[in-house]
């Protein structure tokens, strides 16, 4: 998985590309989020548009990231969920846990 971080209007946008699966991307996601949290960043938006595959391990990491950001008083939200990843979150009822947006401006406005 490739990750890149850009900051827009006080929100750290994490663009992910590739797989978030066991042994490939799951730990990388956690480490990237932890670095942001440790450096005091509280508003984090994960852009999932180019995520090709996710498994239960990747879902677990997403949940763990959500919890660690929330526990620090921050907000972690999701942007551009591909349909199959949305399905995977839906069947485990996690879709109700995350705030999910279809447009970046709309997502950014929600942090204001």
């Amino acid at each position, binding site marked *: 998985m490739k990750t890149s971080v850009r900051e827009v209007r006080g929100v750290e946008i994490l663009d992910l590309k590739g797989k978030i699966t066991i042994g490939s991307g799951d730990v990388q996601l956690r480490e990237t989020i932890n670095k942001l949290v440790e450096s005091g960043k509280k508003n984090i938006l994960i852009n999932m548009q180019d995520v090709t595959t996710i*498994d*239960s391990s990747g879902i677990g990491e997403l949940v763990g990231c959500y919890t660690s950001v929330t526990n620090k008083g921050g907000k972690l939200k999701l942007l551009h969920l591909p349909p199959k990843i949305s399905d995977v979150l839906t069947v485990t009822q996690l879709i109700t846990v995350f705030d999910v947006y279809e447009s970046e401006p709309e997502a950014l406005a929600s942090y204001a």
Partner: protein
Amino acid sequence: MTSAKPSAEPGPVRLSLSSRFENIEMAQHLCGKLLEERELSEETKHWILMALREGVANAIKHGNAQNVSKRVHVEMRVEGETLEIRIRDEGAGFDPSRVGDPLAPENRLKTSGRGIFYMRTFMDEVRFGRPKEGGMEIVLTKNLQTGKS
């Protein structure tokens, strides 16, 4: 003299994988090949391959505790309209009834415990057994008739 009519069904495919996560892709690739001739929807294929991924990952991580000297044995076959995938590890086994319900409010935000749930969601049947060879075996079955495109 009559010659035996060749079976129209490919396989079974049998794999013996070392306990490395990168081998999950190989199992998925071969399962994809096994299903290639079937007129399945992309959606159905995707969920079958995800269930396979979860089963092999479970065997590597929890069954064999990522000990690369232990193997994960995978057998995949199509008989009639039924796909059967057997995944056996060489670990100590576990009691599947003790795995918590990931939909329960107290488990909703746990970072693990969803793999078996996904297998049960995406396949028709998931059975657990303790074969005589040792380890734990998960048997996944799917009626391919219902997943045609």
